Every structure is written in structure tokens, then in C-alpha cells.
């Protein structure tokens, strides 16, 4: 398993991308890794209307996730979920490679 997403995450991505005017047929969610954050690496988590040629695409129920090859190395085995609790709602990346994550939830070390 390289990268997967839950049904809930997929429908939420579709819902959110429909709500924005720039959305096209190619629009998807870019998930990636970049340096920074308080614990080494940070996630990139944003809409992407123009995927790059080298991106890997993951699709489920009309939702697309784009990951560049370099980030994919760090995201191997990761599952994207959408959670709703009493306190908060949002997307959650369950990355088995993460050894230590920081308080803000956006950065981690592998």
C-alpha cells in the first residue's frame, strides 16, 4: 500500500473542491512534504489545479490526490482520513513512518 484515502476523506475533498470557483476537472488535493515546521518536516496540504507531470495521482470516488515523487517516499503507507470530533474536524494523515510528531501536528521526523 503506497498511499490510500478513506471514503469520508474522499467525499470531503470533492465537497470542498466544488465550493471553490477555480476548481477544474484536474483539481485535486496536493499532499507533500517540505522542510520546516517545528519538528523537521512539514506537510503540504492544499488544492492543486495543475498537477505536474511527475506527480503520482491517487483517486477514489472522484477525489484526486497528487503527490510528487519525492514526497511519496516519506508518505509510503500513509492513509488520509477525515475525522469529526466534538472539538474539531479536519483531515488526518496517518503516516506509519513518523517516529516523532510535534505539537502543531504539521511537522514530524522520520
Amino acid at each position: 500500500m503506497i498511499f490510500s484515502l478513506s471514503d469520508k476523506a474522499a467525499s470531503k475533498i470533492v465537497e470542498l473542491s466544488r465550493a471553490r470557483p477555480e476548481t477544474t476537472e484536474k483539481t485535486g488535493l496536493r499532499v507533500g512534504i517540505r522542510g520546516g515546521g517545528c519538528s523537521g518536516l512539514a506537510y503540504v496540504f492544499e488544492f492543486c489545479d495543475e498537477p505536474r507531470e511527475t506527480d503520482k495521482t491517487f483517486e477514489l470516488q472522484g477525489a484526486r490526490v497528487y503527490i510528487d515523487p519525492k514526497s511519496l517516499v516519506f508518505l509510503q503507507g500513509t492513509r488520509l482520513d477525515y475525522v469529526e470530533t466534538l472539538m474539531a474536524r479536519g483531515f488526518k494523515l496517518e503516516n506509519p513512518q513518523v517516529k516523532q510528531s510535534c505539537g502543531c501536528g504539521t511537522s514530524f521526523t522520520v
Partner: protein
Amino acid sequence: MTSLASGLLQIADPKAGKGRPVGIDLGTTNSLVAAVIDGRPRCLPADEGGSPLLPSVVQYREEAIRVGRRARESAAERPHDTLASVKRFMGKSADDAETKRLSTYRWAAGDGRVVRFLAGGRAVTPVEVSAEILRALKRAAEGALSQRVEKAVVTVPAYFDDAQRQATKDAGRLAGLEVLRLLNEPTAAALAYGLDKGSQGTFAVYDLGGGTFDVSILALEGGLFQVRATGGDSALGGDDFDRAIALAFLRELGAPDPAPPALVHASLVEARRAKEALTEAAEVEVRIGGFAKRLGRAELDRIIGPIVERTGVPCRRALADAGLDASSLDGVILVGGSTRVPAVRRYVRELFGREPLGDIDPDQVVALGAAVQADLLAGAGPRDDVLLLDVLPLSLGLETMGGVVEKIIPRNSTIPTSATQLFTTFADGQTGMDVHVVQGERELVSDCRSLAKFRLSGIPPLPAGLARVAVAFQVDADGLLEVTAREQSTGIEQSVAVKPSHGLSDEEVERMLLDSLDHADEDVRRRLLAEAKVEAERVAFAARGALRDDADLLEPSERGRIEGALEALAVALRGDDEGPLQLAVAALDASTQGLAQRRMDRAIQRALAGHRVEEFEGGKA
């Protein structure tokens, strides 16, 4: 990216808040919105039927608010709920003499400071009415551009005072627009003609609209326009032409005085049509009921001539105020639909002694100039005078233990930029540190480009990990990199300057980038291995030190176990596999646990020896 403390992620939208900046001409009679598309400013369809002109008329109905042509057309049915020309009330107080003179509307009882109209069963301010017009323009632009519109440059007459300007800004905010700047209408017209490209000059802007006349004298100095003088007549415009022509028709057809309203209306409509037709044609057929006549340009000029000439006085006064005469001007610009009338053009030519600039649609020229300015302010324009920021083509970093690259400044950072990172010593008593500056995206130094190497010496001998060396990377606007390493306790420092992009062609940069993608998998594995080796060596080093220094603490079987684990680790270190290495480190760690505990106890006892307990309790030690 936004995040919640819960560690849940929200999708960020890189396009959010950007949208396309537009230029808006918020006029007394009509309003327009324009945007720069493919490098050229264009007015966008703003009203039903695709017209770029949105009549500045707002009608408050119980069920909805109507803006534009539909509001104007149904004004007769609902005269009190339909508000037009509210621009005249912007920023004015209800006590203002001019407000009272202009108003045909019903007033809401208030504190007398803010004008409030009673329309559609509510009290609305001129700012709120203007906001409805801006909202309609914003919506129309979003529809035409298929893009969010959140930022705008809005034009105001040059003579608007602070209160009137503030009111215009408030209207923008109320409509959900960030007003990037308020731009003087004459300046906008000059921008549309690209007059800002010259180095200097003085220009007159002759703006004859439906109901107002404005003249401004602009001076361009060092790329900036300054309004030198303004003048005008707030009750003079194309509508006066229509009334004069209609009056001439009524006289000719022998209508009683006062004429019946229906006849007045019919002749006004016909007057307007005739006036517009005569811009192109030399003669036009006029029909009002049973009355018919042919109207020629010469006769039209005779009718409206006296009104056109009324614009001369404010023009001459503005020139005098600016200390100029007509011959010293570098250009005259025509603004406003009424300047299409040939008689007006001819008069302007005579007045200023030169052919005026009029080839841009005079209704649109202000909005087009505002769009040019909005585009510039939003930084999207391809113009030379926009500061273009350079970016670093490749990441800059440092070599750390094990030949691994630590990126200090990531690629695509805009320059100038700087970043500092703290490093420490790897071995006990280490007094020097090699600083190796590299460029590239790969994880290992051997795959990146070496830019510079220098040695920081004179670090005070301390146990491993205690010395602090700050390495600062600084890239200036010309792309020159300066790297400085500074030991924190002594302040000794060493630096080097390099030009990172020197000698690298675009193809090489491209290749380095692609390499990093192609080798991503392998690179990460190698990086993890290199890091594991460094960690293994550190653990082995510490274990050997413990065996040497604290041999007396060892239990009989312990030395053999630790030495066995060290041996296994040495074997794993020679291999190229991260897995066995981590297992060997874990085994060594387990074998030294007992020893480590006893070493810790001894260290504490030594530290406490010779001190009284109270010293620690008092927190003074």
C-alpha cells in the same frame, strides 16, 4: 497551510485571497468594472445584456434589491425607492447646503450628521447604496472572469475630500472588496493612455459626463501624477444637451408651455437619440408623434453650442490655478460619454489649441486606467517598473556528519533571504569544524554541487554536543551568498562569500532538479543509512569510553556482552543496510543499560560530594 492544535489538517487553497484585481469607475450616472486580460485592460459586461455600463441606480424592493438598468427603467413606478446619483452625497452631512439643494429623496430622521434615505421601508446611507453598486460590479466581474474578485482600485474625482474618499473606501469594504487604492479619475484616464511611460509632462483631462463636468490639470514627475488644479461644474453635462434639444423640438412643434409630461418625455428620448446618431451621421430624421423634421449637425451645434462653451470658464480657471497656459500642455485627454459629440471635440481643440486624445472609449477610459493600476499593484503586470523578485534555482545547504546535506535555504526562496541554523560538535574536545557549503536537491553531499569549504577553528574544547556554532546563510538581491559560522560562547567567526548560480546553465539546474526526483527513493534510503551510521558510531564511541573510564563498575559477565555487541555493530557498520545496523545499535544499547545506570549514580554522587543538601534545596547551587 492552516492547522488546528488537534493535529488535524485543513486544506489550504493557494489561490484563495488572490483572485484577480479589477479597476472600478464608480460614477455618478454609470459605473464600470475592468480587468487586465492577456496584458490588455478590458471593460467587463456589467449589466444585463452584456453592457459594460451599469447605471448607478439602486432600487430597494421588499423582495430584493435591483441595481442598474432594471432599477432605472422601473424608477417611474417607485420613485421613492429608487436612488440615483448617490455619489453626490458621498461623505456629505445632512446639514450640508448642497445636500439639501440636490435632494429629491425622502429623508430618514437622524442625528443630522449622516445622510439617510428612506427607500423600500428602510433607511440607507449613500455608502450602503454605493456598496450595492460595487457588489453588483463584483458579481458581474466574477461571472465574466470565472474567478474570484476581491481586490479593486476604485476611482474618485480629483476634488473628493478625505471624508468623501473614506466613504468610498467604506463602500468597497462593505461590498467585500479590498480597496487597493483610490485613484483620481483624471489620473486613471492618463494611465489608460499610457502617459505614465513618459518621464514628465503636464496634461489636461476634460471630463464631460451625463450630469457633471470636471477638468483637471495633471503633472507627471518621475512616474508619479500630481493633480495641480481642478475645476468644473457639478450641474453641467450631456443631459443638458438633451434638454436643450428637446426644448428646441417642443418650440418648433408649437407645444404649450408647460408641455404635457408625456410629450416632454417623448421629445427628450428623441433628442437623445438624435444627438447620439449625429456623432456619426451628418443628418438625422426626428419624429415626435405627428411632428417630423430633419436635424443636421449644424443645427445641433447651434442648439448645444452655448452649453458646450460653459465648460470654457472652469478650464481657463484650472489652467490659471496651475500657473500654465494652454500652449505649455503636453496633451489633453477626453473622458465621459458626452465628449463623443463632435461639437465638444471641436471646442476642446480650439480651447487648448491641440488635437485631444480621444481614441479610447471615453466612457471606459477611467475604468481601464483603474484596471491597469490594479494590475500593477497586485504585481501581475509585465511592466518594467514592477520589481520582479528573483528566486534561488536550487537549495543551499551544509554538509553534516556522514556526508548528509542539511538544507538551510530551500529552492524557490525569493531573494534576498537569510537563514541561520545551530550546529554542535560531534566529538569530545573538538576544536575545529569544517563548513562545507553545497547546492542541490539531493540528500548526499557527493550528489550535490560543492560551492565553498572553510574551517572554523578555535572552538573551546568541550564535551561532544555542548559547543554551539551558528551558521548563517545570507543571499543578497544580486544572488551573492555569504556564509558565516560563529561559535556562540567565544564569538569567533569565519565567513566566505560565493556566487551560487555562477557557472550553472538553466539546463544544468534542470538536470539537478530532475536527478533529485529520479533518485528520490534511493537518496532517502542513503540518507537514512548515513544518519543511522552516524548514530551508531556515536553510540559505539560512548560505549567504548564507558568501558575505559568506568571499568570498575562492570559486572563479571558484562564486559564480554558489551564487547560482543560492539563487535556486531562494527560488522553492521561496514554493511550498507539500515536494518541490521539499527538492530545492532539496539543490542548494544540493551547490553549497556546496567552500566549506564551505575555510571549515572556515580556521576550524581560525585556532583553532590562536598555539598550540603540545603544548598540544593535552597536552589542556590
